[in-house]
């Protein structure tokens, strides 16, 4: 791919992302996420019988900073990616893009660029959150490179899964249903297998985000999944009819 063409695709994707990620929408989505984590923290702590801790909300929230980031990586980014690309299929923007001088390969490259940006955003968010917590509570910042890589990989693995689903289904709401349905199916399967460690995409991600002591096989599994999902998405898109 030529440099100029690549720059054009990056510009197009950047414009699409910026136009869609308007301030109001982003704040609304982020508030929902914060609410979700807030409720989870309260439920967990009240389950432990530590009611006093529930009252001291800011400190607890920051203690549970990892959970915020995990949820962002785990739910927000893949879903945003899925909705973004799904909209392009719903409004036939894909067809318009393909007849406006870019080919399928370049279009797909644009989407993987978007995936990379979203994964990067999770890592940046993790760094900002650490710095913020350190500044507010005067604690030293501990940089764990392994953990930052893990956040990026989790986002890119689940983002790739979302990418594959949306390129296969080509409809936003059906793709959302398939994505959620798969997550539910995998969780149910894992529960039936009594939590035995299986290197399935969601289970590996949950395991890594919860444990905090990520192992090499986890990283390898996520890397392989990311590559496989992207390859399948491209193979499906390359030969499919866009009616």
């Amino acid at each position, binding site marked *: 791919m030529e440099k*100029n063409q690549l720059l*054009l695709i990056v510009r*197009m994707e950047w*414009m*699409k992302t910026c*136009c*869609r990620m308007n301030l109001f929408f982003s704040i609304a989505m982020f508030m929902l996420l914060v609410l979700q984590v807030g409720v989870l923290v309260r439920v967990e702590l009240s389950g432990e019988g530590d009611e006093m801790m529930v009252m001291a909300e800011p400190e607890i929230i920051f203690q549970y900073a990892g959970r915020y980031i995990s949820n962002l990586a785990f739910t927000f980014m893949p879903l945003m990616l899925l909705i973004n690309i799904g*909209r392009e299929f719903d*409004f*036939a*923007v*894909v*067809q*318009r*893009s*393909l*007849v*406006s*001088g*870019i080919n399928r390969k370049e279009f797909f490259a644009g989407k993987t660029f978007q995936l990379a940006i979203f994964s990067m955003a999770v890592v940046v968010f993790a760094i900002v959150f650490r710095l913020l917590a350190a500044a507010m509570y005067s604690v030293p910042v501990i940089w764990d490179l392994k953990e930052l890589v893990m956040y990026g990989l989790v986002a890119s693995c689940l983002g790739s899964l979302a990418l594959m689903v949306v390129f296969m289904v080509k409809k936003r709401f059906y793709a959302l249903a398939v994505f959620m349905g798969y997550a539910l199916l995998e969780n149910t399967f894992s529960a039936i297998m009594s939590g035995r460690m299986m290197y399935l995409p969601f289970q590996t991600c949950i395991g890594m985000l919860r444990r905090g002591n990520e192992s090499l096989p986890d990283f390898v599994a996520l890397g392989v999944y990311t590559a496989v999902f992207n390859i399948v998405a491209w193979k499906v898109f390359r*030969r499919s*009819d*866009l*009616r």
Partner: protein
Amino acid sequence: MLTLEGITKYFGSQRVLTGINLELKRGEILGLVGPNGSGKSTLLKIVLGLVYQTEGVFRFQEGAERVKLGALPDKPGFFPGFSLEKNLMLFSGRVKRPVFNETIARLGLIPYLHKKFSSCSTGIQKRCELAAALMHQPELLVMDEPISGLDPAGVYAFRSLMRDWQSNNMAVLLTDHALKELEKICTSICFLRKGIIQSVVPVHEITSKHGSLEEAYRFYNLKSA
């Protein structure tokens, strides 16, 4: 400019197009007419590379793998929440600003540039689609129902654009149900029914033989029924 040889298309087990052979020369405006479900849109999508043919080949002009295409597909393909300007900017790629400005001015879109695409009337939306197709200064223009939804002024502007296009030696492949308008715009007409070409006839021959395109349409449809 464009040659189609034995194009056949199946959607599952349903055959939509059967052995389409067609040639489009420079300066020619070819109109595809036929009843709903005759395969007109599918044929256009094959030319645009959105749908893959099951059998057959299509070639652009000698030696060229592709030509500069301009297209007006059956769906608008714009984000409804974006302004017309943002939508046009998204798909203008490397179009130079003067060309961009000239195209939107010619189609009378300047007063609507900051309006949301979804809040514009059908006619303005159609003009916006036309602008996106024309600003690339294509060699081959492929359009699916470009006239439907246009008001008389829009139709007039469209007709004058097509004349310019023809004089610039560009080729146009279009389909529409507005037969009277097609008769004025096209140089030849391809009659399609159930995925099979009935006939390809120059417009002057149609008028001398059948009186009007409507009569010719009736003739070819009854003949093949």
